[in-house]
Structure formats: C-alpha cells, structure tokens
C-alpha cells in the first residue's frame, strides 16, 4: 500500500506543479466567485440560476481535469521513459496502475472540495443558507463518478496510442453517457428487433454517470437523497472502477517495454 501511496503522491505533485491544471482550477474558482457574488436585476431568485451555472462549470472543469490528468499518466511515463527506472524497482505493474488511479482520483477530490467550498461560501453569503449535507452528497457522488471516469481513461490510455486521441474519445463517451444515458432504454423500446436488444445491452453495459449528477438537488433545494441510495451508487461506481482498473492491468501486465 505504501508503494501505491508513494506513486499517488507523485501524481498529485505533478498536477499542482503543472500550470495548465492550476490555471483551470484558478479560473473556475474565480468565475464561481465572480458569478456568485454579482447582483443581477436585484432578483433574489437569480441566485438559483447562478448556482446552476457554477455547478455546470464545476462539472465541466472536474471532467476536464480528470480526463486530462488520467489520459497522460501512463503514456507520459512511457514517452519520457520514467517507467523504466520505476519498474526496475520492486513494484508491480498493477501497483503502478492503482497508484496512478489513486493519485488522479485524490487530486480530483481535492479540486472538488475547493470548488464546493467556494460555491458554499458564495451562496451562503448571498442567501444565508448552508445546506451542508446537500453539498456533501453532491460532492461525494461527483467524486465517485470521477473515479469511474479516471479508471476508464486510464484503461483507454493503454488502448489508444496517443493521449489526445484517448482524451477526445473518452470525453465524447462521457458527455454522451451524461446527456443520453438515461434515455437509451426509451430509445430501445421504440426500436424493432433485434436492434432493441443491442440498444438495451448498451443501456445495461455502460456506467450510468448521469445518476451521479444531482445538481438539481442543490439548485432547487430538493430533499436529501436516501443514504442507502448513496451507498448503492458508491458500490455501483466502485464495481465499474474496479472493472476498468482490472482491464487496464490485463492490458498492461504483459506489455513489452523496450528501454
């Protein structure tokens, strides 16, 4: 476990020493702050729209950070050849994959905490309203969703040769699932046989990332989600994350690396 944590530590260090991620982080935080503290039309209800925009921005930024970070981890190790001195140490390829995953996922978690903290402070100062448990549930579910995304992108990085191709394909798949995932069963119902079976199979096969998008709960002050449902969603994400990591390991464990 110590080796995995050490590997994760290097990923996090790299992330906060890279300017592009830093810029994205600061930009999102700034926009959240500015939008959140501006007064539009003196309408008290406008805050909800602002919160919705801020949450959308947080989702987009978090996905960009997760995909951008995870997509280059293993390809960059191979391209910069840092993988050779690393694998010459008593570390398994499985530990490398888990370490990379943990680093990216923790980095996403830290970023999310900062984003939600900004949002909570801005909204709280405007509305004097502090739904802390709502924020916690939204943050937790988004973090679980990012776990699946990071694992999926890591797996993709071992399939596609170029990190840019992997990142583009992964973003298309993620956005596709987020926007269309919930409608696939309805689409399948309207299809003739055997196309309906194919669409149904896709519906049951893909990780339903859209379940983790609970922005409406925060925007419209809906009641808290049942904690059992949160637990179920956590297990569902853990299963998909583990599956993608297992696939990545199967792909990476026998891959010849020529120093």
């Amino acid at each position, binding site marked *: 476990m110590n080796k995995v944590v050490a590997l994760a530590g290097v990923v996090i260090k790299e992330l906060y020493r890279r300017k592009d991620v830093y810029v994205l982080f600061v930009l999102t935080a700034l926009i959240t702050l500015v939008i959140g503290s501006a007064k539009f039309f003196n309408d008290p209800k406008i805050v909800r729209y602002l919160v919705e925009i801020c949450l959308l921005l947080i989702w987009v930024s978090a996905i960009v950070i997760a995909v951008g970070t995870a997509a280059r981890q293993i390809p960059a190790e191979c391209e910069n050849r*840092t993988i050779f001195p690393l694998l*010459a140490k*008593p*570390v398994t390829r499985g530990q490398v994959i888990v370490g990379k995953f943990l680093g990216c996922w923790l980095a996403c978690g830290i970023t999310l905490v900062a984003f939600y903290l900004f949002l909570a402070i801005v909204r709280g100062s405007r509305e004097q309203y502090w739904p802390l448990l709502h924020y916690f549930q939204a943050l937790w579910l988004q973090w679980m969703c990012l776990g699946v995304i990071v694992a999926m992108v890591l797996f993709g990085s071992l399939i596609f040769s170029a990190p840019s191709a992997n990142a583009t394909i992964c973003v298309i798949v993620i956005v596709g699932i987020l926007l269309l995932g919930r409608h696939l069963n309805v689409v399948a119902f309207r299809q003739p046989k055997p196309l309906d079976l194919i669409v149904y199979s896709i519906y049951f096969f893909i990780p339903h990332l859209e379940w983790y998008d609970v922005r409406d709960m925060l925007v419209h002050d809906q009641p808290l989600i049942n904690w059992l449902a949160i637990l179920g969603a956590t297990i569902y994400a853990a299963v998909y994350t583990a599956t993608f990591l297992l696939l990545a390991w199967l792909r990476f464990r026998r891959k010849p690396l020529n*120093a």
Partner: protein
Amino acid sequence: MDPILRIENLRVEFRSGNLRHNPKVALKGLNLAVQAGEIFGFIGPNGAGKTTTINVLLGFVNPTAGNAYLFGVNVREPIARQRIGYLPELTYYYKFLTVEELLRFYARIFGIPRREADKRIDQLLRLVELEAVRNRPIKTYSKGMQQRVGLAQALINNPELLILDEPTSGLDPIGRMKVREIIQRLKNEGKTVFFSSHELGEVETVCDRVGILHEGELCMIGRVSDLKAQFQTDLERIFLKIIGYQVHG
C-alpha cells in the same frame, strides 16, 4: 556458491504486426552466470541483444523461452528487484521533482524507513556531489548532473547488484572518471556490478570478467586477463576478432 545473476536458455523473439513475417530473434538461448562480488562487462555491437538481456532481467520484456534469476528468484517476481540498482543509459526521471523528492519517492518504493532514507539520501547526495542543488527541480540540471541523479537513485537501496546500461554514454571525461570511481568503490565494498558498454577501454580497466554477445549469442566469456593472455592482444582487438570484423590497414 549460487550465482547472484543466472540466465538459462534465454530466448527472446519480437513479433511484428504482420504474421507473415518471421519474428525477430533478439536472444538465442543465452546462458550466463555472474557471481557475487564480480564486475561483469557485457559487450557487443549494436543490436547484439545486450539491452534486451537487461530488459528481461528488469522485467520490462518477457522471455519467449528460458528463465532468468536474480538472487535465485525468477525475474518475473517483482521481489527479485528488491536488492538491485539500475542505471539506464539516459536519464529518465520526473523532472518536476527535486533530486531529494525523487530519492525519497524511490526509497518509499523500496520500503526504506523514513529516518534511514533521510540518512541515505544525505550520503548519496554527498557521493554524487548534488548536495548544493538538492532542492532544485531536476529539469534545471545539466546532463552530467542528471546522470549523477541516475547513479544516486540506483544506489538508494544500497543494492547488492548494480545493473548499468552504458553508464558513461554521453558523459564528459570527468563524468566518466567519476562513474568509474564509483564502480571501483562499489567493487571494494563487495558489490556485484553487471554493465553493458561500448567503451572497451573502460571495460578492460574496470571488469573482472567479460561476456561478448553477438547476434543474440554469447560468443565468448572469461576473465579479462585470461582473454588477453590467450589472444595476446587488447580487448578491442579480441572483440573485433570474435565478431568477425576485418581490420583494414
């Protein structure tokens, strides 16, 4: 005494994407044993299979047939690499880290306790003369300094066996001398060194035994002094003769 490094009937083939093409055979049943405390020079022309052998020993490439063992443990097991140090030909390190952070990271990979790691890092930075720049990112180092980072990381676990892949390649004469001094010092400490090199003069000076690899086969192995006595010439000429190169003029 069991050898520290043992290679048995090692065969490595690389298949191209096209199934019609025959696989490229990099190693053809290599057998080799290196005893504890030896400095073994592994020499051969480009494409002879030296780096492929090192890649197998380090687990980067899986052999098509045969086995390799480090300290009696099959190289497929990561634990086989617990007591070795590896210095690649070129410097491949996380350039956003400082040398101290890099060494601490590798120390954690080896499971070295923090206090011991601190002591070891101080010693190594003194040895490779990087103490003054320990808090500067590696990307700001010169090539020679980066090569010294490589040496420090290879020694972080106080290895019993050091595998060096062309350690002096691209270094200036002072850098070469330093590497040679460090190898000699390791020999005096009773460490085993396995290194591949094109610098035959260096091999002749430093090594106890040499193995000459050509087209994936070990053509000659023996003590440097014995080979020189047998052929009545220097190592460079012995090498050229064995690989069948005709010297003109």
